[in-house]
């Protein structure tokens, strides 16, 4: 019998998982075979050491940090997802106030000029925000920066081709699951745009992270994208994939059929 076979038998013997017949076989070998006896003593020491190692207590500060983090998440969940709504409201309110106070042709001219200036300021702000988030998404050294970039992208009202390209690249290539999921969320917001839709369909066949796969399937099914049915059939029968992913694909097939 090979060393590996004896390892397995001896482990079951130590764990008391052997049939009476196998137990007798092992005990006979322990009495007569010095090599098997040494192997048994070594295994027993290793297994006992593992049994006695026990669990370590996590530091108390971990609970404190988690509670802080949880409260931040609760606060963030309560906040609306748009970033420009409040300033825009202020601007509209200011415009209304001016309309009431001023009046007359002169006022109309000035209001027009002001609106023009506000529009330009908003465009500059949007451009600056987009440049900032593109730079964040491209930060190879910091996953949290990229995550933040994708989160800001989610709050954008519109996305140009450059932003969509970067988000698709992030969804496909980023090494961090959190960042990929955030990029997927952001792309989902622009899913009415044809290039985004096509990129999401393509990602379904290339994505390997189970969490991202599940989210992607849900998103495409919500979009009623029937062209993915064939891919969903493949996923639902792929033995290499997690059951959760296959279940989601199966549920998607039922919803789309």
């Amino acid at each position: 019998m090979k060393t590996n076979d004896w390892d397995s038998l001896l482990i079951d013997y130590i764990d008391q998982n052997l049939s009476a017949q196998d137990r007798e076989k092992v005990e006979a070998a322990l009495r007569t075979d010095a090599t098997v006896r040494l192997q048994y003593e070594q295994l027993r020491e290793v297994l006992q050491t593992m049994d006695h190692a026990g669990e370590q207590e996590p530091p108390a500060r971990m609970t404190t940090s988690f509670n802080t983090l949880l409260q931040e998440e609760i606060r963030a969940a309560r906040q609306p997802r748009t970033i420009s709504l409040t300033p825009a409201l202020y601007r509209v309110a200011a415009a209304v106030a001016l309309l009431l106070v001023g009046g007359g042709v002169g006022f109309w001219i000035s209001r027009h000029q002001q609106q023009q200036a506000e529009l330009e300021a908003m465009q500059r702000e949007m451009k600056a925000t987009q440049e900032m988030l593109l730079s964040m998404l491209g930060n190879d050294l910091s996953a949290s920066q990229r995550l933040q970039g994708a989160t800001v992208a989610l709050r954008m009202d519109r996305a140009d081709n450059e932003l969509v390209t970067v988000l698709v690249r992030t969804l496909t290539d980023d090494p961090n699951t959190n960042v990929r999921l955030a990029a997927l969320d952001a792309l989902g917001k622009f899913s009415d745009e044809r290039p985004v839709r096509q990129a999401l369909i393509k990602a379904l066949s290339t994505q390997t992270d189970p969490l991202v796969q599940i989210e992607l399937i849900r998103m495409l099914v919500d979009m009623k994208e029937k062209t993915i049915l064939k891919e969903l059939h493949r996923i639902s029968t792929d033995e290499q994939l997690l059951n959760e992913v296959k279940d989601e694909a199966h549920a998607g097939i039922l919803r789309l059929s």
Partner: protein
Amino acid sequence: MTDEMLMKAVKDGDLQQASLLFERYNKRIFNFLAYMAGDRVLAEDLTQNVFLRVIRYRNSYRDGARFEGWIFQISRNVLADHYQGQKRQRSQFIDVENMSDTLSDNTDAAEQDDKEHLLQRAMTRLTEEQRQLLVLTRFQHRKYEEVAQIMNTTVANIKVKVHRAIGQLREHYFTLEKI
């Protein structure tokens, strides 16, 4: 309330329920990551990251799915992401020379401590999958059935792999003992 009911509540927007899941699972996840990473401080960060993902990606939890399997899958992903990020900078193998400073706070020179230290060093010579299997089955005393669900495979496959891992651990342990 079961874990699954709590997670369903979190998914439905009652994020405060995540604190109960944290109470139930933080020690298990911390220990899993501490044994896997061989570094308590890193395990602390990674554990926070696991629970952050539980909250942020709550919508990816499938109603009724076993919560424990789901959170361990997240833990494995967090660990894999960590190693992926580190890959370019250094080997994913643990720095054996600094193990005693990182994994255990206990510096007693008792025999059991020596054995545990030796065991930790031997563990670093196993593959990541083998370490995961031994942490779950031997340090955390989970049944093969549970681990098979977590690892998405059969009980027979888990048993074979665990026995093989123990056999290799034995060889590393007694080779290192002679050094």
